[in-house]
């Protein structure tokens, strides 16, 4: 009996660690280690096939700072990110507000706005690539009907950025609206009633109650959007189909940093240099996340 008791006690002490260890072991091997080791690789001349060719210190970083292809990709990434994220968050907030009114067939509307998110990113890139095709795409046909000449969507910087932003927003606006809706539902109804009694317009209620109450969720959503947006890869890759899609257009007009990373690693076979790109991208995400929080903290909260 005593031995059994002791065994049970020992089991109870060890079990929690046994239960959480699968997550930590797998994450350490396939998540944390690769991320940290990227920093080590970035300090080497490291080739895809030949392996480690020696420690080079910060040489890769110095080269990157002078690499105009990298700066172009960075401009593209940030441009598309801003062009996509700002309207997306505004639309999602408005949509959440609409979904929060008393509606018939609630689940139907929610499913309707979430449908795009079920579509894979690859499919989104392919479908929109055809919708924005130069010669027979439906967008150019519709523009032609109202007298606007055909736009070579892939051909220019501004137009490819716009098309890619539309893809991103199509896939994510509804999803974010649902997350904002969840947080809206926890706003006490009395706040709105009091505002209505005081004669506040719907617009005023939106800015003085909804937006401040949603602040933590807006911060969360925009950080997630930042992490995804800075790593944008699939949509632009499949938007510019063809064998050299990784180049992001004939003059790299819509090549993102993540695409440049993959191009350097696998086409250029420069693992060390590509790791430098990855690590800079990581710092960039951290930087933008901090900026995001700092900016959105300035929304005044309701006390």
């Amino acid at each position, binding site marked *: 009996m005593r031995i059994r008791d002791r065994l*049970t006690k020992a*089991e*109870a002490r060890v*079990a929690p660690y046994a*239960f*959480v260890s*699968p*997550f*930590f072991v*797998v*994450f350490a*091997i396939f*998540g944390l280690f*690769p*991320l*940290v080791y*990227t920093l080590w*690789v970035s300090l080497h001349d490291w080739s895809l096939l030949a392996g480690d060719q020696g420690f080079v210190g910060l040489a890769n970083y110095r080269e990157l700072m002078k690499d105009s292809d990298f700066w172009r990709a960075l401009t593209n990434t940030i441009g598309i990110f801003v062009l996509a994220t700002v309207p997306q968050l505004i639309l999602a907030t408005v949509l959440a507000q*609409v979904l929060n*009114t008393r*509606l018939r067939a609630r*689940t139907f509307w929610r*499913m*309707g*706005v*979430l*449908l*795009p998110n*079920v*579509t*894979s*990113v*690859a*499919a989104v890139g*392919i*479908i*929109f690539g*055809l*919708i924005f095709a130069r010669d*027979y*795409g*439906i967008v150019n046909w519709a523009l032609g009907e109202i007298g606007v000449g055909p736009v070579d969507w892939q051909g220019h910087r501004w137009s490819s950025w716009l098309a890619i932003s539309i893809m991103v927003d*199509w896939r994510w606006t*509804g999803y974010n609206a*649902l*997350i904002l809706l*969840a*947080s809206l539902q*926890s706003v006490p109804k009395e706040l709105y009633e009091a505002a209505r009694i005081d004669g506040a317009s719907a617009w005023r209620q939106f800015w003085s109650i909804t937006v401040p109450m949603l602040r933590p969720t807006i911060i969360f*959503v925009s*950080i997630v959007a930042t992490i995804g947006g800075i790593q944008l890869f699939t949509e632009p890759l499949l938007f510019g189909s*063809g*064998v050299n*899609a990784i180049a992001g257009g004939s003059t790299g007009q819509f090549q993102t940093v993540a695409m440049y990373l993959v191009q350097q*690693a696998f086409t250029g076979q420069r693992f060390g240099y*590509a*790791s430098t790109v*990855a690590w800079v*991208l990581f710092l960039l995400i951290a930087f933008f*996340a901090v900026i995001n929080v700092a900016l959105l903290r300035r929304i005044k909260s309701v006390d």
Partner: protein
Amino acid sequence: MRSRNSLLYVGLVATVLLSAAPLYFMLVMASRTNDEIVSLPPPLSLGAELFPNLDRVFDNPDVLFGQALVNSLLVASVATVCVVVTSSLAGFAFAKLKFKGRNALLLFVIGTMMVPVQLGLIPLYMLMTKLGLNGGLESVTLPFVVAGFGVFMMRQFAQQAIPDEMIEAARMDGASTFRIFFSIVFPALRPAAAVLGLLTFMERWNDFLWPYLTLDSDHPTVQVALSRLSSGYYADQSLIMAGTFIGTLPLVVVFIVFGRQIIGGIMEGGLKA
């Protein structure tokens, strides 16, 4: 008041139409011949070529589309089962068991949700090469058998779904922690496990970047097969769209059947985070 309400519905209808339009378009183009696709005005209604186009997708010798469907199903299912089991175990431990370092470890789990681990893809590639797994399906499955989001979600659910008295009572009866997990906790976690399973399956089915980099041409998943279809030398639009349709259909069906649960899971997840 009434007019404002109908304005809301008009806005919603427009939003839902915009959501569905690209998918409808995909179906239109998948059901047309290439000649019809490049005619003006572009076709806006369904054509008669869907099944012939689908046949061409499955017969295409370069892409192995049928194999890709099976592979995706396999990879996504294995990852889903593993994520649900490992997340339930860890979630239960974090919610209901006392142990040293619990709070710090939980904080770490939450942190992993905010770290872009995809950026470690170069060392991950080197690691998979060393393990001899590059190119095969193991390489796109193994890294995804656990998920920080899953652990956190199950922890939140376990906290309110499992009364402490239940666990105490089982302990009094001399049940081990493993026993308690399998006979009491796991059954109680089933609703959340189902939602986590759905979300995980969809995420794995749609995964692109890492499979695109690591898988060889003999082991495509659906998304990789799609990118190969669309990056051919000449663009066979109706073939590409038919492939995209088949690759999208399974998840749309899952979504229509389990939409309510999926929406619940997403809204809960956002609220808690």
